């Protein structure tokens, strides 16, 4: 479940880690990365995603974030759910320590 080498099909979210603290962040708009997946922009259009990726690269250059990439999400339950276990764990925190990570902050 290492990072996907190419984009998955279907709805996607752009993610990265924040330089200063390594925290998982998600692209919302040209100026904003958010910590919460539910506030992330979901791309269903390949062109818009490509444009956001280019924008993310600019933010890598500006030293705000590290290593941006897109991953697939599932919207069928009405919320933004990561398609992979890896992204689920990044979005919530360790599955074995519910008192740690974003899941703890949300509680």
């Amino acid at each position, binding site marked *: 479940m290492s990072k996907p080498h190419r984009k998955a099909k279907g709805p996607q979210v752009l993610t990265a880690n924040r330089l200063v603290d390594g925290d998982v962040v998600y692209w919302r708009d040209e100026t904003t990365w958010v910590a919460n997946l539910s506030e992330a922009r979901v791309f269903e259009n390949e062109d818009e995603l490509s444009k956001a990726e280019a924008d993310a690269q600019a933010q890598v250059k500006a030293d705000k974030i*590290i290593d941006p990439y897109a991953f697939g999400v599932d919207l069928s339950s009405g919320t933004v759910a990561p398609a992979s276990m*890896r992204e689920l764990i990044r979005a919530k925190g360790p599955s*074995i320590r519910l008192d740690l990570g974003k899941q703890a902050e949300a509680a």
Partner: protein
Amino acid sequence: MYRYDEFDQSLVDARVAEFRGQVARRLTGDITEDEFKPLRLMNGLYLQLHAYMLRVAIPYGTFNSRQMHMLAEISRKYDKGYGHFTTRQNIQYNWLKLDDVPDLLADLASVEMHAIQTSGNCIRNTTSDQYAGAAADEIEDPRPTCEIIRQWSTFHPEFSFLPRKFKIAVTGAPKDRAAVQIHDIGIQIVENNKGEVGYSIFVGGGLGRTPMIGKHIRAFLPRQDLLAYLEAIVRVYNMLGRRDNIYKARIKILVHETSAAEFTRLVEEEFEKIDKTNLLALPDEEIARISKYFAPPDFEELAPSPAALLDAIDQDRDFALWVKANVTPHKVQGYSIVNVSLKPIGGVPGDITADQMDGVAELAREYSFDEIRATHEQNLVLPHVRETDLYAIWQRLVELELATANIGLVSDMIACPGLDYCNLANARSIPVAQLISERFAELERQHNIGDLKIKISGCINACGHHHVGHIGILGVDRKGEEYYQITLGGSADENTRLGDITGPSFPYDKVVDAVETVVNTYVDIRTPGESFLQTYARVGLAPFKETLYAAA
């Protein structure tokens, strides 16, 4: 214990100052991530799934109460109140912020610790037998040898950019508790027929994608030649090791591809060329000087098996089980080696809270000549404990929730951090370990099963040593689902062996059943007194395969 001299301290302090500057320039954008990444890795700092992770070196697994208290303090101050002991006798912090790391490193340096060379393509922290200086079967304490290697390899200018990482392990006893044959260089201290102590050398062991057992290239190396010979090995590797393909860059591939015989010839040829009278000379006086740091503590003359201990064993069943599993004979009469299990039932293998760290530190200071060891099996050791103190220590460990009586048993598993933390993982390791330990929670059952080492890795890089587990578990990603491949019959001791794959892998919710099937099969077919490995050697894979895949 070794104490830093002025050179050690100034090297470490200078490195902290240098890294502080690098972090500052990274945060202001004066250096890019591509430029910074190799610098942070040289200082043990990774970016993992949730945050930065720092790997702190515990040279050859030996440390004291002051250092343990500092590790606790650091986990409270900069992290989330716990740490994780690894299979390389290091400790990792999982939740760091980049801008805190320079201060953290300065705190570490204040107790003679650092994270230098715990990552990157250099010679890593040398690991050793956790019972060094205490084991009854030891030819010689391996720690002076480890310390000599540490001094030689620290900032070694020729070996700062090797083709790939490089790991050395040293054992001083014929019973190998340091897994030397799965290291890039494995060193076993031996005695020749003249009664001289020297080194037996293995090269090219390693796990990962292409597991290999080290090849024995020297039966007896005189001790004064240690550094010259190590230099020859690493130089040959540095020149010929592949840099074009990360998966073929470890020395094990070079040794395999050139053949052990040809590799040995190249090393011996290089060794002949090296000037052994100068920088790499290792005169007896220098060995003696380093050895002094590891002089045995002032052991008292004590009677063995004191009555109070025997009474406590008689009267307290839990204590008796703990003594049976966690206490090991010491070389000095009246003393014992205490293993502190970091594998509570349902817990995270290797994790320890700040309060537990402080508790172990206090026990070490009070009862074990201020010494603590970290083991490659992710436990801790109090190496020099009076038998008369065992009951008191056990009671304190019970209060600390560190008294699980399971050393060497089925619930004493190695597990890598896996997908819960690690950027490289394909599957989770920790919850699998937790489920297995809960399945076998009943201690009497574990004791009945006997010696059994389960080792779990969440990806092919094999940080959880699955290849050499009696039962090995490897997490794989099958179309986005976590699956687990099982291997049987592996071992990392003096009879190192790679496990055999049983067959198709098992999904997450079936892997614990599969492990239990293997264990039950063993219990059913073993002869009286036969260990899992002995049974496996006798019957092979077939009976296990049959029960594992019977339903399929």
